[in-house]
């Protein structure tokens, strides 16, 4: 797998843009990220467009609802379909969130926080290892935005994530906006937090916009990325000392494709600036 085509700043492939993206192969986006849950088992025109793009362009895959830290058994049929999908797309890895999304067979369609306890580490490590055994590509886990600790914590978030990543021996999809939002909500220094983390496991970054609601800042994916988060992305890339793909997420208040391409170009410039030499797909 040549990872060079996954360098630079990519975009999440979203339904309102499918026709436009399919119609212009010169979009300049080095890679797309797609959510398998939104493609597998779907049908119709948008589905055909999505598949055509995924067959044409470089793609990373990012799952939303497999509930890595949950207790519901895996859906064997879905894992089989997912494996086929990952092979078809040629993704070098598949990422999932370090959270739970379902309880007792009920899907909550929200990224819910795991308890920061030794028992939760043990359980999640076992689940992640088992999930990895079912996948044809390496698994990455992503740090989430969380708004509350779930029960009395035995460790902090940084220690919890580190123990799970190390214990499961999986890569890290580091969402710098989530770090930034958590730092705002819980009052810590995001750079000091990152400095504690196993950055050698980082294979990809996520970046997105957020919004403040009263006392709480929420990871909305519904606004442009603000400068402090871009600066944190640059700081992280410099700290890594190596290029990794960065993915701009936008899931709400989705702008026209042209506007999103312009934001991607702005982020690509920031990416190139910190890495000194332009890498990957250039500017859209």
């Amino acid at each position: 797998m040549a990872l060079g085509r996954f360098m630079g700043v990519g975009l999440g492939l979203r339904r309102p843009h499918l026709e436009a993206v399919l119609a212009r192969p010169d979009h300049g986006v080095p890679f797309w990220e797609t959510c398998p849950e939104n493609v597998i088992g779907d049908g119709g025109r948008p589905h055909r467009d999505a598949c055509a793009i995924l067959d044409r362009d470089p793609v990373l895959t990012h799952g939303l609802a497999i509930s890595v830290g949950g207790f519901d058994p895996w859906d064997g049929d879905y894992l089989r379909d997912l494996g086929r999908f990952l092979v078809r797309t040629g993704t070098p890895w598949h990422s999932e969130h370090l959270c739970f999304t379902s309880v007792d067979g009920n899907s909550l369609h929200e990224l819910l926080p795991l308890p920061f306890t030794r028992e939760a580490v043990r359980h999640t490590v076992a689940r992640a290892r088992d999930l990895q055994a079912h996948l044809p590509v390496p698994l990455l886990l992503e740090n989430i935005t969380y708004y509350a600790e779930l029960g009395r914590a035995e460790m902090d978030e940084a220690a919890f994530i580190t123990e799970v990543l190390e214990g499961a021996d999986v890569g890290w999809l580091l969402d710098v906006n989530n770090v930034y939002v958590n730092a705002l909500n819980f009052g810590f220094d995001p750079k000091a937090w990152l400095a504690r983390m196993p950055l050698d496991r980082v294979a990809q970054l996520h970046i997105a916009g957020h919004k403040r609601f009263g006392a709480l800042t929420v990871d909305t994916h519904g606004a442009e990325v603000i400068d402090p988060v871009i600066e944190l992305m640059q700081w992280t890339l410099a700290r890594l000392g190596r290029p990794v793909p960065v993915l701009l997420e936008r899931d709400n208040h989705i702008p026209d494709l042209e506007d999103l391409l312009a934001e991607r170009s702005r982020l690509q410039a920031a990416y190139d600036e910190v890495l000194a030499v332009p890498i990957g797909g250039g500017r859209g």
Partner: protein
Amino acid sequence: MAEPLALQRALAALVLDPEGEAFEGDPAAFARSHGLPEADAQSFQQFSGGLAAYRELARLSLLDPIETMFPITRALLEREGAWGSCVEAFLQARCVASRHYRDIAPAFLGWLAETGWGQATWPFLLELAHAEILEVLVARFPEADPPPGLHPDPGPRDRLVLDVATQVVSYRHAVHRVSEAAPVPEVRPTHLLAYRDAEGRAQLMDLTPAAAALLTRAQTESLAEATAALGLTDLPATLSLLRELRDRGALAGFLAAS
């Protein structure tokens, strides 16, 4: 400290169950009522604002596709002051099992069908909800290979094969004629053909009762038998209609009836 599963169940209850509404009044009591030990109860107290945000965020995620897909059903029930109790009952029933976000709205329809919620008061409610989602279900129906041996031109000894996405539906009410401003349908038997055109977009066609019956019967009987049974005397005209439906994409084609 509680086992992780107990904590996850407590958070799910906070999100889905009616008592979650009163969570912020006494978060520790809520935790204790779900069997969590005192240390976790105190944590629920400490992080009550963030935990309450999960109730709001998860409910937004679950209800947004329902409000988007069933705007007329919502308008009707809001007008009657019943939308809130409807979605509360739906969430409490915990029937969203699928990980696919697109399945939330069909789960709501399935819940209406299984429970009969509201249908003593609004006998057309299930038909209305079904009609609202019909085109989306057709538009997104997964592709599948047609059966082998199909031919494009119908003959009297053939039976018809619907396209995999096509649905022939019959309602007791004219639910496809309502709007958010006028959400109550008139009582009028209604037959619809919902299909996906060559561009992959859903189309809706009014059918006569005879045409609806033909499209249903002729899937298992020959066209000659079906038209005779239905008293349709102009077989060439019927074949011409079916040819047109095949050209539009509603029918996959025709097979010799066994």
